């Protein structure tokens, strides 16, 4: 039974198909993106970040790839140099926001309920609870999901996608929409690589390149503080690019 081939049409509901005659009908051409309302809100968010010279980073991955652990290590390392705020997206619980706040960083929790992604409207609401004038970087930790978050612009400046070595190295080929959107790919939990003999970082990178994506690929382990320097350098460089150019 489907809405595609007509197998759901029965003698009992056939009359519903008898629509009014075609005269009086007009097709109005629209040719507009289905998510244009979201995109307008995202542009508004981005302008807001730009005005404050704040870098906005959208962190995406499958559940459990290590987004929160990466943030915790990143916050501790950046303390005293860059001021960070975090927007946390989860289906339920404030657990992640609590973990972030324990590092002395402002965190807004968006509990999406059953929503599988964050959208620009949610981010806009969350921004009211963040002191943007006192921040340099805002991390948006998206809902753990390699499908839905990729379709929604939030107003971020960059998408950072995590792929943990406990997943398959063919993930970029399986989820092309997500990995095509990545401005940076982090191979997380790299300390477990000796135990994961079926994950080859080179194969993961090859799958990313097959999507015509030239984004940098950085292996790291937040837990064991391995490979964090290139990631932090990338953040500092991207943040510096957000500053209004000085006339003097």
């Amino acid at each position, binding site marked *: 039974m489907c809405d595609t081939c007509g197998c759901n049409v029965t003698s009992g509901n056939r009359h519903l198909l008898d629509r*009014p005659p075609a005269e009086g009908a007009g097709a*109005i051409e629209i*040719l507009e993106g289905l998510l244009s309302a979201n995109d307008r809100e995202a542009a508004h968010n981005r302008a807001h970040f730009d005005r404050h010279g704040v870098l906005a980073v959208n962190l995406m991955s499958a559940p459990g790839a290590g987004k929160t652990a990466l943030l915790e290590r990143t916050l501790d390392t950046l303390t005293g140099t860059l001021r960070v705020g975090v927007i946390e997206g989860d289906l339920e619980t404030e657990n992640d926001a609590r973990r972030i706040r324990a590092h002395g960083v402002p965190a807004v929790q968006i509990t999406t309920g059953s929503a599988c992604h964050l959208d620009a409207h949610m981010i806009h609401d969350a921004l009211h609870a963040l002191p943007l004038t006192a921040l340099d970087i805002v991390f948006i930790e998206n809902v753990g999901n390699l499908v839905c978050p990729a379709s929604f612009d939030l107003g971020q400046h960059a998408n950072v996608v995590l792929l943990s070595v406990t997943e398959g190295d063919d993930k970029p080929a399986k989820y092309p929409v997500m990995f095509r959107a990545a401005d940076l790919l982090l191979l997380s939990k790299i300390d477990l690589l000796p135990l994961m003999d079926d994950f080859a970082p080179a194969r993961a990178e090859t799958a990313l390149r097959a999507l015509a994506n030239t984004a940098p690929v950085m292996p790291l382990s937040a837990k064991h503080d391995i490979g964090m320097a290139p990631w932090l350098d990338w953040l500092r460089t991207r943040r510096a690019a957000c500053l209004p150019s000085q006339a003097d």
Partner: protein
Amino acid sequence: MHELSVCRALLDRALAVAATHEAASIGRLVVRIGPLSGVEPGLLREAFAIARTGTAAARAELVVQRSAVRVRCERCGAESECPPNRLICSHCGDASTQLTGGDELLLVSVELLAPAGDEAIAR
């Protein structure tokens, strides 16, 4: 399933068009969806059947135009069709390509129905 969110956005836009033209109802919605849009047409249909209930689009038909994934090679200039997870030039094999189609998520047109006996809807 984010298709329901996409569907609500689609209906909001279509119903606004119907209201502007003082249409009685919506007869047909045409959307164009590419494999790299992140939206599954089958799931969008399911979501549409739920979301349209009780609106002026309650009996509307959703027509999905599928588009192909196409890339243009920056090295040899050729344009080719390719699978969604292999966006490399099928002529020379180079990976420096630009997507020229396949990520569309577009509301193409809305067909409006006038109340029986009314004047035709202005186009």
